[in-house]
């Protein structure tokens, strides 16, 4: 059984801000049924770019539900600029931590938020730069390099916990390892 904090359990059992928001003016969606978790984030943003309401719908494990609930609580009242600086670590910290195998749940929150902000601002998120390494979860080498650098990831397992890359068919695992090596070497130089 996972070692979930009381806060994770509380947010799973009694999630805040659940449901579709009819009058949302920003929506961000991430994940899919195939992946095993998905999040749809709804925001109501006022003319000063302040988030006056947030809600979510989540398909996933207890930590995915808790991360979504925490995210909506964190960003309510923030301006979009402030919200854009919220990271997955902020979500995990708010919950008193997540098991490392479940960090991708908080990453999903951060990514849905980015998409919602882009949606409000009318920015189209274009095809991701870089080369797709993991087909199952659509993760590029640049994303892996970035995650390795900012979070000090060491192994393919760490990468899977963070980005899900490699968590499906596993055919990309060798390639992930190469990318990690390149990222590490780049850091050393």
């Amino acid at each position, binding site marked *: 059984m996972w070692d979930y904090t009381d806060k994770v359990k509380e947010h*799973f059992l009694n999630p805040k801000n659940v449901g579709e928001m009819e009058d949302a003016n920003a929506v961000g969606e991430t994940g899919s*049924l195939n992946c095993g978790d998905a999040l749809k984030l709804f925001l109501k943003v006022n003319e000063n770019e302040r988030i006056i309401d947030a809600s979510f719908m*989540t398909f996933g*494990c207890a930590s995915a539900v808790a991360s979504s609930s925490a995210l909506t609580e964190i960003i309510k009242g923030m301006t979009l600029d402030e919200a854009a600086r919220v990271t997955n670590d902020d979500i995990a910290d708010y919950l008193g931590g997540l098991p490392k195998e479940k960090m991708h749940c908080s990453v999903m929150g951060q990514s849905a938020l980015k998409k919602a902000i882009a949606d409000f601002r009318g920015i189209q998120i274009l095809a991701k730069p870089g080369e797709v390494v993991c087909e199952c979860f659509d993760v590029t080498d640049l994303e892996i390099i970035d995650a390795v650098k900012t979070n000090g990831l060491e192994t393919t397992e760490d990468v899977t916990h963070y980005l899900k890359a490699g968590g499906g068919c596993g055919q990309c695992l060798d390639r992930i390892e190469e990318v990690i090596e390149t990222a590490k070497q780049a850091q050393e130089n």
Partner: protein
Amino acid sequence: MDVIYTDNNATTKVADEVIETMVPFLGQFYGNPSSMYTFGDEVGKKIRRARQQVAQLINAQPEEIVFTSCGTESDNAAINAAIKAFPEKKHLITSVVEHPAIKNLFSHLAQTQGYEVTFVPVDKKGRLDTDILYESMTQNTALISLMWANNETGVIFPIEEIAQKAKEKGILFHTDAVQATGKVEIDVKAAGVDMLSLSGHKIHAPKGVGVLYVKKGFKFLPFLIGGHQEGGRRGGTENTAAIIGLGKACELAKENLGLMDTQVKGLRDYLESRLLKEIPATSVNGDTENRLPNTLSMGFDAVEGESILMLLDRKGICASSGSACTSGSLDPSHVLMAMEVPFKSAHGTIRFSLSHYNTREEMDLIVETLVPAIDKLRQMSPFWKDGKMI
């Protein structure tokens, strides 16, 4: 809070009668069964009795029974013995839905020792593709190893027929009967298998004890080389109390086999039909015609397994999930994937596995807990709207 235990394919409660049988051998009777004095031989006698009890359950001879530490050891020992017996043959056959004790060892042998392994596929109902199986048997095949019944879906493989075909081709046949033992009748003679594994803790004996049946006449090369215990087929001082407990558990399993087909199956079918009726967009995984009487694998569309388990756990209900998210990986189990169960229900699959200790009241409580739990999760799910999957 009382526990409602419906995860008997994972492990079982040790029967009270088994504990009673074991206790003296944890205290008073601590002699080594190999010793040359009466104090040790008292224990030796009990082990001989346990060997008979195990043999009786599966219609074997006592000298065909080798005690091991678990099902995994039995599986590994069988495979290793087979490849040592036929070093010139470099082909092995198994299925895609085996337990990791088989699957991972075969993959390891393929990677490190140049074995070619055929992993026979299953269809959408989890039934083995016997055409592919039979076509893949060659002169070069050292061993076929197939589970008697699947741990997740309970689907039963046609072991007797396959063993017969293997025999005709002179191929050794091993079956992992860890899940089938005590749930359906196992007769090694009628089935015609060369080796069979079973595990104590799946039949109300303690953990840490298993059995490998080795047919008389097969020159079995040991996996653990040491003293002359187990007829030289497995060295190491016996786990005496557990072995004696396992003997008792086998005796009970034989007596209770009838209950499996009546009481336990009745409860399973009751739970299944209520859940199908009361929760929309729900399906049963696996061949319902040919399935262990205690197992129910159910997929609930648009929700995820770990979340369901957590809500059940709050009411003390123990079951297990078909999504590997509970183990840190993100894919549904390899069994559900091999069966091509659609993602929409595979991620939300829960396995209930019952025993004769379960009651009808417990089944009612499971339904009463699960109906609102699934509803709550679906209201939160982005894939569910107005009572259906979107």
